[in-house]
């Protein structure tokens, strides 16, 4: 019998280029046979210095820079930044703009989660499921194109409200689409919840306990899959305070639980969209901003992947002194590193995908 001390260790680089990774991250794996015993992450392949760039542009141009931190949650980046500056300059945003922000925010959450579900299915080799998820996502992208003129980076936020309104016909169309999405989801969620292929690859894999998730600073569905009911929408930013909302969480802490949280959040987003459309008041959707930001502020929103935080410091001019961005994947990498040891190398793609990594966000 060979004891663990006699098993030779080998080092295997995972990434930065790997078929399962849409973006580059490198994980140095120390293996005993096929078992992972240690994992050290390395980032830095797509660092663009966008925080530095905001120190060279005026605060309005910076919105377009910050939206490009990440395509998938671009609206949320702009929202977090604009909300922070509005708080700093004590600007009262029109009620209609707050509801419009919820609508575009939940549309972004829906398309992000559907994109992730597709990639997750692809990670365990279920390609037809990947196509089904992305087919549903197209409906959201069509709405974003119809309401903003762009399919992913929609640029509808501005300081003081939104740059566009949505008319009543389009709101009715969005509402109708939410029912179609629920119907389509009911067709695929059975596969994610009950199919043996999915269960074998996700149940009991990558378990992160509630205590570890908290200590390691896990956020979003990664934390909520481990039983942490933390969701910044409970802080009532935008119009969330007027809507019926409870954080969704699961307690198993494995890849299956994280997947389940995201699917349940998809249903929840459709309900939030309908509530926001029904309750949205008429009126202005932006106010003119004459103030200049002076002082410092911290702003937080709940992105599809979890908590996003902006620290902003202004000096009374149009150009900000500092914009610091902490994105959810940056917070979830320590949790990923913690959950890898003890698993087989073949589980790695599913484990990495389970935190919904966004490396463009992480590196900025």
């Amino acid at each position, binding site marked *: 019998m060979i004891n663990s001390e006699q098993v030779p260790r080998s080092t295997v680089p995972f990434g930065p280029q790997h078929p399962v990774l849409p973006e580059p991250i490198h994980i140095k794996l120390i293996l005993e046979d096929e078992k992972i015993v240690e994992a*050290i992450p*390395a*980032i*830095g392949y797509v*660092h663009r*210095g966008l*925080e*530095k*760039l905001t120190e*060279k542009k005026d605060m309005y141009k910076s919105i377009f820079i910050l939206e490009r931190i990440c395509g998938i949650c671009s609206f949320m980046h702009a929202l977090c930044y604009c909300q922070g500056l509005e*708080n*700093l300059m004590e600007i009262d945003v029109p009620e209609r703009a707050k509801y419009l922000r919820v609508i575009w925010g939940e549309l972004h959450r829906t398309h992000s989660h559907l994109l992730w579900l597709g990639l997750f299915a692809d990670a365990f080799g279920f390609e037809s499921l990947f196509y089904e998820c992305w087919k549903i996502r197209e409906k959201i992208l069509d709405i974003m194109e119809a309401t903003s003129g762009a399919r992913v980076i929609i640029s509808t936020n501005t300081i003081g409200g939104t740059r566009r309104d949505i008319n009543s016909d389009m709101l009715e169309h969005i509402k109708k689409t939410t029912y179609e999405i629920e119907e389509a989801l009911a067709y695929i969620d059975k596969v994610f919840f009950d199919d043996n292929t999915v269960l074998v690859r996700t149940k009991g894999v990558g378990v992160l306990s509630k205590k570890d998730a*908290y*200590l*390691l*600073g896990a956020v979003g569905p990664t934390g909520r899959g481990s039983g942490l009911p*933390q969701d*910044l929408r*409970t*802080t009532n930013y935008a119009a969330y305070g007027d809507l019926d909302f409870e954080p969704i969480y699961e307690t198993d802490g494995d890849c299956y639980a994280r997947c389940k949280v995201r699917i349940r959040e998809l249903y929840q987003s459709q309900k939030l969209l309908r509530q926001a459309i029904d309750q949205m008041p008429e009126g202005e959707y932006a106010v003119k901003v004459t103030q200049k930001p002076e*002082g*410092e*502020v*911290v702003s*937080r929103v709940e992105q599809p992947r979890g*908590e996003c*935080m902006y*620290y902003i*410091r202004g000096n009374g001019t149009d150009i900000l*002194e*500092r914009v*610091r961005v*902490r994105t959810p994947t*940056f*917070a979830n*990498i*320590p*949790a990923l590193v913690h959950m890898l040891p003890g698993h087989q190398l073949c589980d790695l793609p599913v484990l990495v995908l389970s935190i919904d990594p966004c490396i463009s966000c992480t*590196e900025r």
Partner: protein
Amino acid sequence: MIDNLNEIALDELKNSISNMNYRKYRLVTMSCVDNKDGSFDLFYHFDKESKLVTVKTKVTKEDEIPSITDLYFCAFLVENEIKELFGLNIVDIAIDYGGKMYLTADSSEAPMTYGANITIERRDIGYDK
């Protein structure tokens, strides 16, 4: 205008962070700002039940700043980031990338500091030719 901001001296930092850890606060992240007078503001942002608490300390490049990764392991990425991009001397980080997490050997030093030699230029990538 940061809510729940506690300003402390650098020598009180470790005690203060230990206290947050004991009180079961989650570390959200750290932020660093160059004050353009040779000093830097270092912020430690914590959360408990969606309430944000921030600990702030003022440091210089010469100060030896203790790592908090023994209390919050998850701080290793952000500590490396600040060490590298601002040139601060953070010591005893659990996983220390030695200044090469983002930067390469030919990168300028501490590019996020005021007056760093950073050029932003528009490049002709030749797609239209």
